């Protein structure tokens, strides 16, 4: 008896410790209803990565349609229905690229045509309006029900739900990848699918954390929300998000925001406005990994008017375009998500302006950083110049391979503007003699010209000059100033 009492006394602190640890691991999650829920169904929330715009689906008008709320002062403004996506019996469940300029949505009996049932469609934002949706095509869309897309942060991987034949039963989750000119054949996520329904997949901004809903046994009842993390090319064991996210009602459509403790989901639990409602969960009990983001405004360097320009993200190591985003036509705002451990060229390109590139290095282990970079594009006019993002080995004039994407862009620009003549201007920092720097800058400018000519540009359109260290961009001797002064610029001399 005495022994048992001792065991009990010893066990009590252990149990208390375990309880404390449990509390530490699992913070208290609170859920709050979205202020614009209606008595009809409100579901499929989607928030642009900058957190400025919330899209959701509602059948408050009698048909499922996509609504948008914009944020002002931390508050959501009242929702507006998006009316330009085309006519369909039902439209909903949007997913957006991080820049908020491309949307994939689902529609039933859309006027653009379908493969028979609900299909996925793409829309682009232009001058403040969403374009009419275009069907993603027979590779993605089957003759069955295909809906609830979720795009990765680079817009190149699409997760969606489908009840097509060949799955494990009910609706299953699928994944397709953008191959540059077409989508790959969708592959079922066999490690996550069951004979029950899996719906509303949502890949988090880290591109590794996938949330989805399922009515598989073992949940709290109805649909529950699960999270699974990518391990290599496969997802690990899904975990139930638990209460209060999951209840005995249907809990679906879970989304996480980048570097934010807030998550949104939909549920038809009691206490809402009726039907499915959108709820906010704070803190997100299963946060995705933090990501590095970059945002800013693209403007006309002369008038400061915002520009809708392509934002091209290039991995400088592989020289592959990682993603192409777009700044907003009305506000010029852009927003991109970058993966740690890589060096990128972020290029703003608009056919009526000189393009501009910036090198962005995201070190391995970098997490949760938000870079702000406004980009001013110079109009195509005499004496306007852009710095070319080209790289040379120390003391040499041989172009490094990382330079080639930028020079290919320069060649494209010159092909698109045959009336333009340019001067390639080489500059060095203040290290070394005047004569040596003059020669080096001249040879580097020549190397750039040689590459452009090799790409079919008439050599008569290109002149070169080396300025050495005579025209520093920044008059300073710090390493940062010297890095800015070592440059090659392309200046328009005739147009």
């Amino acid at each position: 008896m005495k022994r048992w009492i001792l065991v009990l006394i010893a066990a009590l602190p252990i149990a208390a410790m375990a309880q404390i640890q449990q509390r530490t691991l699992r913070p208290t999650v609170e859920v709050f209803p979205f202020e614009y829920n209606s008595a009809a169904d409100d579901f499929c929330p989607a928030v642009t990565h900058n957190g400025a715009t919330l899209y959701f689906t509602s059948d408050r008008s009698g048909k499922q349609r996509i609504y948008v709320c914009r944020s002002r002062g931390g508050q959501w403004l009242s929702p507006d229905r998006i009316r330009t996506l085309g006519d369909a019996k039902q439209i909903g469940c949007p997913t957006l690229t991080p820049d908020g300029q491309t949307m994939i949505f689902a529609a039933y009996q859309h006027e653009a045509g379908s493969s028979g049932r609900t299909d996925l469609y793409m829309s682009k934002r232009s001058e403040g309006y969403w374009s009419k949706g275009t069907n993603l095509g027979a590779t993605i869309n089957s003759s069955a029900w295909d809906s609830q897309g979720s795009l990765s942060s680079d817009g190149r991987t699409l997760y969606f739900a489908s009840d097509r034949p060949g799955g494990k039963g009910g609706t299953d989750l699928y994944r397709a990848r953008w191959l540059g000119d077409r989508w790959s054949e969708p592959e079922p996520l066999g490690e996550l699918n069951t004979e029950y329904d899996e719906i509303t997949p949502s890949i988090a901004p880290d591109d590794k954390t996938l949330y989805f809903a399922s009515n598989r046994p073992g949940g709290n009842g109805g649909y529950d929300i699960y999270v699974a993390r990518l391990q290599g090319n496969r997802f690990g064991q899904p975990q139930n998000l638990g209460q209060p996210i999951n209840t005995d009602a249907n809990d679906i459509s879970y989304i996480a925001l980048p570097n934010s403790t807030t998550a949104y989901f939909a549920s038809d639990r009691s206490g809402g406005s009726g039907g499915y409602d959108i709820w906010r969960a704070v803190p997100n009990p299963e946060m995705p990994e933090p990501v590095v983001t970059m945002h800013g405004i693209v403007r006309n360097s002369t008038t400061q008017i915002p520009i809708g320009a392509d934002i091209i993200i290039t991995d400088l190591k592989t020289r592959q375009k990682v993603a192409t985003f777009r700044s907003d036509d009305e506000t010029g705002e852009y927003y991109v998500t970058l993966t740690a451990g890589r060096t990128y060229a972020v290029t703003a390109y608009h056919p009526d302006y000189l393009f501009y590139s910036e090198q962005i290095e995201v070190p391995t282990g970098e997490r949760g950083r938000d870079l702000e970079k406004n980009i001013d594009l110079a109009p195509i006019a005499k004496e306007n110049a852009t710095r070319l993002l080209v790289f040379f080995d120390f003391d040499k004039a041989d172009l490094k391979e990382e330079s080639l994407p930028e020079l290919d862009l320069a060649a494209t620009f010159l092909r698109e503007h045959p009336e333009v003549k340019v001067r390639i201007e080489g500059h060095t920092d203040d290290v070394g003699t005047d004569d040596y720097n003059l020669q080096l800058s001249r040879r580097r400018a020549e190397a750039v010209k040689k590459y452009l000519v090799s790409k079919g540009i008439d050599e008569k359109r290109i002149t070169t000059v080396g300025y050495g260290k005579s025209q520093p961009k920044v008059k300073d001797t710090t390493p940062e100033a010297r890095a800015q002064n070592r440059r090659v610029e392309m200046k328009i001399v005739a147009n």
Partner: protein
Amino acid sequence: MLQRFLLCALAASVAVALRADEDVLRPKGRSEPWSGPPTPGLVRNPWALGVEVGGSLSFFSQDVTQYQAPTYQTNLTSGSGLGPLLNLAVDYALTDALGIQARLGYDQKHFNTNGFIDSPCETPPGSGLFIPTRVEHTTSQTIAYWTGGVALRYRFEENWVVLAGATYHSRSNASFTETDSITSGTCQFYDDVGNAIGQRRQESGSNTSAFTAARWSIDLSVGYRIPLSENIVFLPRLAGQIFLNPLAGDNLSSGYHSVLGQLYAFTNRRLHALQLVLGLWFNL
């Protein structure tokens, strides 16, 4: 034939509306028909109440048979006019798109007819001097009805609504105003004792019994919903009202002259209407 067609169309629309279509959330659609939201509303409660005000643009026509010398009545073959209406309505949603409506109301039909005749005028009376005169005769007629009707409501687009139904019109009262105006010449009208009363004379009165006491109409309308808030919807609609029975029976007595006999006769007296109705609907 028309009734059979309407019944077939009704049955087809009910069948389409009751089918549980798939949507972007549910591949098999809702497991059971959903009762809301009703046409004017936004919420699942299937009941909605509506208050409607508007106007009826009535189109009156009749056949006029002339037996004797022409009179101005020859010209009174048609007329039109605007009258007010007020409805209280209730909507019960059967499915997402389909609902039944019932309404009680007050509907005033109004129309004017007028005609001219050139008539010699003895001035002053008994003088034997006749001068040519042109007289315009205008009849302004108002018939008020208490109405009750049912309609099938179908939403064919997100905010477009069609209504098809029937309305019973119970005659409340009717009044007329007849005006004669001399439009040319210096002739005047005279009262019964020979006093000149000017070039215009008017007579008003009630003629309720001259009109059919109970009328039926087929009503077809199209409307557009404008949500004002989650529970209030503004719904203007344009309705066509085709009456199945005549406005009034054939009128032979008014054209009968005790000496000359039958001068003219009004027959086949019809009235149809277009209505512009502004409705405010409240979800319950």
